[in-house]
């Protein structure tokens, strides 16, 4: 177990190196650079070559590609994530401000979709072919096909504007900072994001549960005279759990990236909108840091998925 963790940890380094390099390369290959965004097209037309060159030099953009990559990498290794090219604010501060909001929203949505999706998938499988199953199948189909922004806007209209139950958007009122005060702001975006993610979990849980229901050991459990509820839950659902855990585990990286669309609609001050702006503005220190966090989250998630699978299925050995 310890050796396994250590090995996974060591494998992390080359993966991170490769992924960050590819993202850096991707940014390099995009036409234009941060200067063209900061200065704007009109100013660009009026500035002469030496002024632009001076601006590039001041931002360190005049160095060759590899030199810039390694300078960034060196900084990261020393714990220095650099400064935003557009605002000059330290990246660490931006992330520290924005990341908690995104984590809060995504974790809530993940929780909603996991609980709701597993429960509905279970109910669907146990009522296979009946009205409930068919209704949930249709609802799932709608859930997958309706875009989140539409769903988000409709729910704002209904719950915030018409019913006035919940705030329209934002994360908190300035005068309050406690969790309890933040909760009403969280409910709507978390539900919208959670419900739109539920359909996938539900369909997956249904398939996994149906698979378990068809297994021989279910008949064995019945042959012992166990009540149906115990047969379905303790034997069936427990056996169906490992594949569901894998699906949910691989959604963990979403915690970092968040949902750009939902953050925009609910004016949620998270990483998503910041990331979008940074990519558009070629603000590479910020893009790279968020990319780094995402890669880290993906790798951490796959590690967690392995641990969860091993914990849920005794046949799986960590090696």
């Amino acid at each position: 177990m310890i050796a396994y963790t250590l090995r996974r940890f060591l494998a992390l380094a080359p993966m991170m190196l490769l992924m960050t390099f590819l993202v850096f390369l991707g940014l390099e290959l995009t036409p234009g650079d941060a200067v063209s965004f900061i200065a704007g097209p009109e100013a660009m037309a009026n500035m002469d070559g030496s002024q632009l060159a001076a601006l590039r030099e001041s931002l360190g953009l005049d160095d060759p590609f590899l030199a810039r990559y390694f300078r960034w990498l060196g900084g990261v290794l020393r714990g220095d994530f650099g400064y935003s090219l557009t605002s000059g604010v330290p990246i660490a501060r931006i992330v520290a401000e924005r990341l908690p909001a995104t984590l809060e929203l995504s974790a809530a949505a993940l929780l909603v979709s996991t609980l709701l999706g597993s429960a509905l998938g279970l109910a669907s499988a146990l009522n296979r072919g009946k009205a409930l199953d068919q209704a949930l199948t249709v609802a799932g189909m709608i859930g997958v096909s309706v875009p989140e922004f539409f769903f988000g806007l409709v729910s704002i209209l209904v719950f915030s504007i018409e019913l006035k139950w919940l705030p329209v958007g934002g994360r908190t009122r300035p005068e309050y900072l406690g969790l309890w005060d933040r909760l009403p702001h969280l409910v709507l975006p978390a539900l919208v994001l959670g419900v739109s993610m539920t359909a996938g979990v539900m369909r997956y849980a249904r398939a996994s549960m149906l698979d378990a229901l068809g297994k021989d050991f279910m008949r064995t459990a019945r042959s012992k005279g166990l009540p149906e509820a115990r047969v379905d839950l303790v034997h069936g659902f427990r056996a169906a759990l490992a594949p569901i855990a894998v699906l949910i585990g691989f959604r963990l990286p979403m915690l970092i990236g968040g949902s750009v669309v939902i953050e925009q609609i609910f004016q949620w001050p998270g990483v998503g909108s910041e990331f979008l702006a940074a990519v558009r503005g070629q603000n590479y220190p910020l893009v790279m840091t968020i990319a780094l966090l995402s890669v880290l989250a993906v790798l951490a998630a796959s590690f967690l998925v392995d641990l969860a699978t091993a914990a849920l299925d005794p046949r799986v050995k960590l090696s």
Partner: protein
Amino acid sequence: MEGETLVRVRNLRTYLYANGRCNKAVNDVSFDVRAGRTLCVVGESGCGKSVTAASIMQLLPPLARIESGEIAYRSAEGELRLDRLPRNGRAMRSLRGRDLGMIFQDPMTALNPVYSIGFQIRESLRYHTRLGAPARRAKAIELLADMGIPLPAQRSGEYPHQLSGGMRQRAMIAMAMACEPKVLIADEPTTALDVTVQAQVFDLMERLKRERGTAIMLITHDMGVVAELADEVVVMYMGNVVESGTVREVLKSPAHPYTRALLGSIPLLGRGRSQRLEPIRGSTPDPFDRPPGCQFAPRCPRQEPACDAGLPPEVEVSAAHRVRCLFAKEGRDGR
């Protein structure tokens, strides 16, 4: 009491439904399962032997139904009509595991891979006895030891995949025997095991029969197993009982052409490689397009037009031997 009939099956008909068609999988089957005796139900795949067992346990697939006939179980409180109990109702559940134990064909798939052997044995104890958790734990280990599993305390905490095939089947038997059921139904318990392990499992079942007076219903397709273990035999073909009786009668003087054909198709050890095996000609008919009369008629060497007129009645050849063939009384010596 030894020899007492515990399960009485009379004129059982269980039909399976699929794609709007009906398979009369079990069609007029009768037999008794007696305390301290082994009843072997023999027949090839698809003859309805497993469906018969599932009917007794009420563990039929959703699209199967007991159409008519009776399954009566003599419980401590009097006779119970199992066929009339709701499938997963409280009464049926309290009998399963406590009075009626069942062993399945493949212990690898029949045991839940995510729970330890001990957990799965303790489950029956939990629902059918008043034992507390520590007592259940001790009892599970004792059961494993009884079934000849070495290091039972350690094995109890292991998962099915950590055990060998034979160990798994012993664990399965320990599970089925946890509450000392009066009737043990074993559905081809050794098909997935190799021959030496098979002998060990049968030894164990023999011991249970002898020591506890358990009534055993053993489903098999192996005539060798029948000769070895059975006290009574029921030979099934395409949903019918074609021949039944004591093992001595049936094996010594088989009266149904199908039984004779089955016995003629088995190689005998010691007769050398020159012995002639007679395969049964033809193949089993489509269950959805059955012969009109005797189900075996199209493959039977003795077939006559009368065989297709309707299912032949059961004929008593002797007090302990019944055959469903028009020619049961004649030509018992010839082939």
